[in-house]
């Protein structure tokens, strides 16, 4: 994961590599993810999240991501 | 003697190729020599899209623009790529909505156009390209506005009237800015 990846304790996304396809948004049945209004350097809307409390680290979003730019973390 | 070698650049979906074709068609209808070449090659997807348009009075040696007299730039990566390539004394048209208005070159002329915003105001962000072409042509004066308007319509034959109308509006607004 690139250094400038945006991290949270449950999830990290490499925004610059996100292609804004929205498949992760669709995959998350808890509706935690959404497309940002902002653009990355490539000119694409990247994915972002607001409240991750409900995130169960289920990895579904990461599993569908074609760019493999999502990392998921969980309490061990 | 007219001899313009123009790069139009942006990202895919901004109608870059269409913009070049409008310019080329208009020039052809004015009986100019003209060539148009989409960039094709290594990087097909992602990255910038751009095209080469050459408008001249004499036979054109090559459609490949390596030393542009003008660059019409619609987004930041394209600015990075082409701003430095324009020949000395050349013309750079910037879509400042996306590129900002920093001018890195002291030896080139700039036209700043808030094109995306203008297009949005006209009701269709996809007309950004026409605003830019209008601005370029308004400044460079190698094809008249009317020729651009009818070329735009010709190439869109079958499209909705509103779109044609918005394009016309966009060309005009651009032209005004370019013309100064």
């Amino acid at each position, binding site marked *: 994961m690139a250094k400038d990846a945006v991290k949270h304790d449950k999830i990290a996304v490499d925004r610059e590599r996100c292609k804004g396809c929205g498949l992760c948004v669709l995959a998350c049945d808890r509706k935690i993810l959404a497309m940002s209004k902002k653009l990355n350097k490539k000119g694409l809307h990247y994915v972002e999240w607001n409240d991750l409390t409900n995130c169960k680290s289920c990895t579904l979003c990461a*599993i569908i991501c*074609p*760019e493999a730019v*999502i*990392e998921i973390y*969980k309490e061990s | 003697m007219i001899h313009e070698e123009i790069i139009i650049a942006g990202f895919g979906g901004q109608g870059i190729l269409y913009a070049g074709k409008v310019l080329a068609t208009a020039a052809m209808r004015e009986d100019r020599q003209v060539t148009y070449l989409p960039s094709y090659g290594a990087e097909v*997807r992602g990255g910038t899209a751009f095209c080469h348009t050459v408008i001249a009075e004499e036979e054109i040696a090559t459609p490949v623009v390596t030393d542009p007299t003008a660059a019409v730039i619609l987004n930041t990566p394209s600015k990075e790529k082409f701003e430095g390539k324009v020949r000395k004394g050349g013309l750079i048209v910037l879509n400042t909505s996306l590129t900002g208005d920093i001018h890195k070159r002291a030896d080139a002329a700039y036209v700043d156009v808030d094109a995306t915003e203008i297009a949005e105001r006209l009701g269709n962000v996809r007309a950004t390209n026409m605003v830019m072409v209008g601005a370029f042509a308004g400044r460079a004066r190698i094809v008249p506005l009317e020729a651009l308007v009818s070329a735009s319509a010709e190439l869109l034959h079958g499209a909705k009237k509103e779109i044609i109308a918005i394009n016309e509006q966009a060309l005009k607004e651009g032209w005004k800015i370019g013309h100064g």
Partner: protein
Amino acid sequence: MKKIFGRTPSLTDAPTHYCGGCGHGIVHRVLCEVIDELGLRESTVGIAPVGCAVLGYDYWNFDVSEAAHGRTPAVATGMKRARPDLTVFSYQGDGDLAAIGTAEIIHAANRGERITVIFVNNTVYGMTGGQMAPTTLVGQKTLTSPHGRKFEEFGEPIRVVELLSQFRGTAYAARTSVHNPVEVIKTKKAIKKAFQAQVDGIGFSIVEILSQCPTYWGMTPVQSVEYVRDELVKYFPLGTFKDETGAKASAV
């Protein structure tokens, strides 16, 4: 907090050249995960096709070869016969495999070559601009079927795994898809079985993966996965069409 999902070693750190939402990226990832889980990275040779995945070697962190369009099964055959100790897979698109490479895939399957084929079926020629493929649905509009594929002129889409599963040389044949996480997981399982069939020397193995090409379907990525879910699977049913891994593997 422990990382429970991240990039696997067989996947390089390079950003892909694929369009947003393209299925190729998903397939690459699960493929690489399988290779790592089976511990095969250092003995694997992958073959990238001529197609959108032509740059496979940029993304796969193991030995990779290119092959002429459609000939990956022949190249794979040459490799595996020459070096049976290597794990050889061929990655192919539907134009590559089901059009120009028809003879090579059929004969590799029939000979029971101990290779694994990852077949990404997106129903179009992606790399060349979205032409009709042998797997294009009837009625589907493409660059070269501007009014939709007509059965009367160009026949029906070819169902590749159904066809190949008929050869005795074929040990494993399945069709999966990557239109949602559950299917992605199934895809990974199928790929794992396919590699296992090779490792166990049972025979030819293939996984056909329905994959979205939002660009040449003229859809957003989200529409494209819905199209797979709602339309593509109707004609291309998902499932396992042949599986001799259990039976023969125990015998090996």
